[in-house]
């Protein structure tokens, strides 16, 4: 150690050359604030456009007809704009996806958090995250060219495009999200709590089921709700693998259209600006937005409401 180093002097000297830095320091919050405002304004802009155009749509198609209509026939002379076929398409595909994603995701999370050794967890978690990074169009392609043909060997009545196959594949796509978020929730339960259970003679399963899951239930449910909202908003998979029939049906072996797939179809088809068809896009988009907004609010509410205190 050099005895001649005088830290006090050095700091004092540096202080004087740091005035420019100090100006910058003061500007930083302002710069950050303006950037934040830009993103907020963009959101408000999108919402405003959605609202204005949706109102224009409801001037032409009564709101009641839109929400209770079972016929969707946007083209031709007697166009009809009932949203129910799209709603059932969206809801059914979401339900099918959840039947896959919730049990498999939760069991994966239980395994990773409670059973896997550190080494296994350290390898599997990044793998899951890779799975989450696959573009959805790949999943869509996979559903159409791989899953549907296999399903058709089991279910002879299955249409070449149907809601079942994209629903299942959507579920697979969402597994990593449920697994990862639930695993985070479970592994944040302090290990003292597990030890309390083990010390009473509980098995690992009893500990997981009766202590860890209840203690992390808010995070787990929040992951389910976010998964649902993801499934509702999913577009590519259903567009590719479920076709564009605007059937109002509950038969999952048939082709159905979801709200998202409808938007893809209509925007791709050059709807003339100002036409009812054009406005219908906004009404459907608005419905979709309200759906996912409710889901996200619900997730927030649940994670606050059911937070176990420890």
């Amino acid at each position, binding site marked *: 150690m050099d005895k001649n180093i005088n830290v006090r002097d050095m700091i004092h000297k540096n202080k004087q050359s740091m005035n420019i830095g100090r100006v910058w320091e003061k500007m930083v919050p302002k710069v950050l604030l303006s950037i934040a405002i830009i993103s907020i304004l963009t959101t408000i802009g999108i919402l405003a456009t959605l609202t204005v155009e949706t109102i224009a749509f409801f001037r032409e198609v009564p709101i009641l007809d839109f929400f209770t209509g079972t016929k969707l026939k946007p083209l031709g002379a007697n166009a009809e704009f009932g949203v129910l076929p799209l709603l059932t398409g969206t809801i059914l595909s979401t339900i099918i996806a959840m039947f896959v994603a919730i049990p498999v995701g939760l069991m994966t999370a239980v395994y990773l*958090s*409670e*059973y*896997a*050794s*550190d080494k296994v967890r350290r390898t599997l978690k990044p793998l899951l995250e890779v799975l989450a990074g696959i573009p959805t169009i790949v999943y869509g392609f996979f559903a159409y060219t791989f899953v549907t043909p296999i399903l058709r060997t089991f279910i002879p009545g299955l249409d070449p495009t149907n809601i079942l196959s994209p629903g299942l594949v959507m579920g697979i796509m969402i597994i990593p999200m449920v697994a990862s978020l639930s695993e985070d929730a479970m*592994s944040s339960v*302090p*290990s*003292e*709590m*597990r*030890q*309390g*259970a*083990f*010390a*009473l*003679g*509980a*098995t690992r399963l*009893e500990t997981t089921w*009766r*202590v860890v899951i*209840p*203690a992390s239930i808010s995070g787990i449910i929040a992951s389910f709700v976010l998964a649902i909202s993801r499934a509702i908003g999913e577009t590519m998979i259903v567009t590719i693998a479920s076709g564009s029939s605007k059937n109002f049906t509950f038969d999952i072996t048939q082709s159905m259209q979801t709200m998202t797939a409808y938007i893809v179809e209509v925007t791709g088809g050059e709807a003339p600006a100002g036409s009812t068809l054009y406005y219908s896009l906004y009404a459907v988009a608005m419905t979709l937005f309200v759906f996912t907004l409710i889901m996200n609010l619900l997730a927030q509410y649940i994670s606050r409401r059911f937070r*176990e*205190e*420890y």
Partner: protein
Amino acid sequence: MSTMTGKDKKFTEVAQNKENDTTINTSNKTVFETKDLNLWYGEDHALKDINLKIPENQVTAIIGPSGCGKSTFIKTLNRMVEMVPIVKVSGSIAYRDKRIFDPRYRVEELRTQVGMVFQKPNPFPKSIYDNIAYGPRIHGIKNKKVLDQIVEKSLRGAAIWDEVKDRLNENAYGLSGGQQQRICIARCLAIEPDVILMDEPTSALDPISTLKVEELVQELKKDYSIIIVTHNMQQAARISDKTAFFLNGEVVEFSDTNELFSNPEDKRTEDYITGRFG
């Protein structure tokens, strides 16, 4: 949490080999007997040739400076130490007439007989009632009336019934630290164990709560055999019948508490209890 299955096997095998050539005679007055017990955390030799006989219906105190292996020792008695994946054990431990590392003796059964109270109160994030009922429930007691009785009896046993009887459905985390610790004791009593292990149960508590827990320990020894770790020598002197002094993973001295404190045999014990180190 990491798995213990892989390690578990190695763990029992090591211990098993030793046990084959070691016969253990347990009188009915001894709850635990350890023979040449050694334990390693990886390369770290944490317990060295421990030979102890823990008596029934008495309070046995484990004292010694920080890091000398007190916690490790009592966590070995209910095999909680195996939660640490790198642990290796040799030697044998008999709990009454059972060899605890015998694969035929389920670890859950051992822990049902040998309860534990931890250093930091660790109630479950559930209601007070559900905390106490947890043990009985996982062991198959479902009847609501029976559970009600168990909950009341256990809370009375842990001297906390009067404080919580009107708020059994509130979250246990709303209680003070001292109350939480007595909830944990009640939770342990609810499955009526035979032995209770306590790892510095008062170190996170204020003096008044400490006193309550100490009185409780005196009360409990009528029905239970208690092994209590403490780094507070006054506490050991006040509440225990027997005391073991640990140092660097070894038992330096084990005798009647009065004896050990008034007339220590080993120089190191004397140094420790007179406050010359530790």
